[in-house]
């Protein structure tokens, strides 16, 4: 089990446990983490699971795929050129024991 921390501006962070092969979106939705919608069910089709990954975890993550890259252009909250990812495309795998992300104020 890995650990994922979802930070919000102002309110306490939410910490959930994530299986290595489960996406961050799925872990968030299953655990009722606020602000992660995942409206398309995890196909990188809707961009409603947008997160800003904290810098220290970026290098260990898989690269942004072409579809994810294009969908990141349609997030409701502004895209960060470095930190923005879709949580449905992120699994922690063997490279990371934990991750911390900031949740945008709006997804839809």
């Amino acid at each position, binding site marked *: 089990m890995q650990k994922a921390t979802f930070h919000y501006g102002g309110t306490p962070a939410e910490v959930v446990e994530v299986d290595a092969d489960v996406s961050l979106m799925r872990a968030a939705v*299953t655990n*009722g983490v606020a602000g992660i919608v*995942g409206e398309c*069910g995890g196909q990188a089709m809707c961009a409603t699971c947008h997160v800003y990954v904290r810098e220290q975890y970026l290098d260990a993550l898989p690269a942004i795929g072409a579809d994810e890259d*294009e969908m990141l252009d*349609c997030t409701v909250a502004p895209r960060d050129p470095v930190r923005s990812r879709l949580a449905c495309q992120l699994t922690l795998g063997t490279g990371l024991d934990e991750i911390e992300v900031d949740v945008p104020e709006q997804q*839809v």
Partner: protein
Amino acid sequence: MTTKDAGRGQVAGRAGHVAGAGHAGHVVVAGAGHAGVQVAASLRAGGFAGAITLVDDDSDHPYQRPPLSKDFVADMAVAPLPLRAEKFFADSNVMLRDGSAIREIDRRAKQVILQDGAVLDYSALVLATGARCRPLDVPGAHLRGIHQLRTLRDARTLRELLTRARSVVVVGAGFIGLEFAAAVRGRGLEVTVLEAGDRPLARALTAPMSGHLAAAHLSMGTNLRCNETVARITGTVAGDVTAVVGSSGTSYPADLVLVGIGVQPRDELARTAGLPVDNGILVDDRLRTPDPAIYAAGDCARFRDPASGERIRLESVQNATDHGRHVAATLLGNDDAYEALPLFWSNQGRLRLQVAGLSGAATHTVVTGDPDRFSVLCFRDDRLIAVESLNSPGDHVAARRVLTAGTAPSLARDAQDGFSLKQYAQDITTSGVDHVR
């Protein structure tokens, strides 16, 4: 992500509305699918302090439907994806009565009576009852091994059966049928898809797009037969399906059959209560029935399409969630008409289809892109009304922008070889030109 997200707005409760932020009241929602759960979530997000009860005859905890015909059925290890965690219902004080159904609406008393005899008073009632699969009416349709795919229970049954199936026949080349066929091929099984029309998804997609999908499924190894209806289904003495016989006389061996020939709105509760029903519950542009305390949302609601003015019923997650948001906003006092841009998506193997707008009324189409990665721009006269994108999410995003902003008259002339919808969307976004619909 949509043109107008009324549910997000901060709207004060107003006198005369059945429920408002801070007001007491009881909103009862029939159905805990994408639309029903969204009503509850948006009401709470908008500050509604009264009681909310969701009643649903499905006994599974409310779940997302899109994965059911895709990765859920393809992979035994995939767990259902909840619409909201159990924690959400508890934390936001939303009463979930799953595994029970509403038997009757007493409009005069503003009460619903459940199957188990329980009676709930409501100040507002939202009918989000969804749809059910249309049954296949041919000899042999009752045989064991013939299934539908609508609920989590259906999907569990199908993926279990796929572990020992040898030959699969899918009746109907719609979204469900083609997604399921792609999942079956992904598991290495033989699959035949029978389609009554002359091309797949004829009602939903343009000819260039459905032609491409047909070719792609053939190249995946799917045996796609168009212009073939089902004459009868044959089985063993014990009652197990053995083959589907087409109108051409061809017999297609099958030990598992998926029937995906469309759905029917679940509107009988409304009909019995005396509300107008015609292929769905008829609602106005606020999604209200003629009874001011009763609304309808999602697959079961027939509403006026703001783009064409026609009464339509849409079967999509986007429509369900946007309806849910809009009903909640209306209950909270917002008076805007519903006008979200329709969006659809489908994954079929490596095919990623995304559609913005409704292409049905298109007078001509322009195809841009490469053979494996392209978009079909759909025009009605000079106006862009829809864009179908295959493996081109950038175009899809651009299409949403362009369709939301209203199209420039020059687009119909500009859209030729080498035209980039993405570039066009960027240009209109940055130019600041006022683009009038």
